């Protein structure tokens, strides 16, 4: 196929599953019927927010806890204080 504008040969490329022809001379692009819509559709998929990741696999099943355990703890949610340890608890970890 030749470029309708400058008559240089055109080469076929595959962009995201859509066949497009690009001129080797003027770099112009020729799209077949429906290919513009196909590219737009692909573009809109890229710009959409990524779907939420599947819930992280729980490394540890919630362990058993005693009846008097903290309501949300006994650790079912990883401890009241999460990853930021309270200074007072940091001290307690090392105290008799």
């Amino acid at each position, binding site marked *: 196929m030749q470029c309708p504008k400058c008559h240089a040969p055109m080469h076929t490329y595959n962009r995201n599953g859509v066949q497009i022809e690009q001129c080797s001379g003027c770099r112009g692009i020729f799209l077949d019927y429906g290919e513009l819509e196909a590219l737009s559709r692909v573009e809109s998929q890229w710009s959409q927010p990524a779907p939420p990741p599947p819930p992280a696999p729980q490394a540890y099943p919630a*362990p058993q806890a*005693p009846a008097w*355990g903290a309501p949300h703890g006994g*650790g079912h949610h990883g401890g009241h204080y999460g990853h930021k340890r309270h200074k007072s608890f*940091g*001290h*307690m970890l*090392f105290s008799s």
Partner: protein
Amino acid sequence: MTANPLLPALTAKARAAAHARTPACPCGVGAVTLADRSDATVVRHEDTVAKAHAPDATPTDLTARLTVATHLPDVLLPPLTQAPVTLHGRVVTFWPYGTPVDPENPDTAPWEAAATLLARLHETPAPAALPPMRGPAKAAHSVARLRALAPHPAAPPVLRAWTVLPAWARAETAMPDTTTLCHGDFHLGQLVRHPAPDGPWRLIDVDDLGTGIPAWDLARPASWYACGLLPAGEWTRFLAAYRAARGPAVPAEGDPWPALDVPARALTVHTAARAIAKAAAADRPLDEVEQSLVDACDRMSSAPPQLSPHSAK
């Protein structure tokens, strides 16, 4: 505050012991006081540590405990000397220096190593002359101190939780297990790497070591977890490693709480009692962590202790 005459004497002892081990001691840092509390004064001189034990520590009991550490160098840090010496009325022992868990970075806590060491300790036959481990006695002491304080609004739920515990957990009768070797005071400050700085982890502090209920040694992490302070992941790592090492304190599978319940309650009460005494002495309210211990004690009254085959005896 009057100067403690023990400290300079202990510092001199630590220096002498270090120089006896390493005549070419670089003395780069000189002596460092690692602890100076009513129950222990600890001084480091380079690779050597001198510890003055609690005023009520007896040479006979301490010698029996030192002997266990000497014979279990893969579990306990072995002392430099077989018998304690006396200094200003206190018994003193000497130890090689080991690198502790970084208190500023407890996320690096070696939960698996700790659990494996405790499992090995619990599996070791206890020598006949060994006294009982002192965990329940120390908890009872904290509760007695709480009772002696001026009335504190947080004290009643803590005292109620204490009174429903079995007599052995309150140190009023002997523990039902008189053959299992226990540490008696396990927490993250009881681990060092030896040789420093990156040798294997070892347990330190034999002051409370003795025979007793081995679940007591798992009960501080269990209590922290139950109070919502220790994340489930860390508790699970600790418990799973203990079970993987075939420790006898809990059944190999299934619910560990029938075995852990009484010791974890007792240590929650102990820690809450100490926290209230500390807050009262500083004339400040309880912080949220301390309050979570009191809240746990409060919830204990509506759930009677689980009696494991051991604790029911």
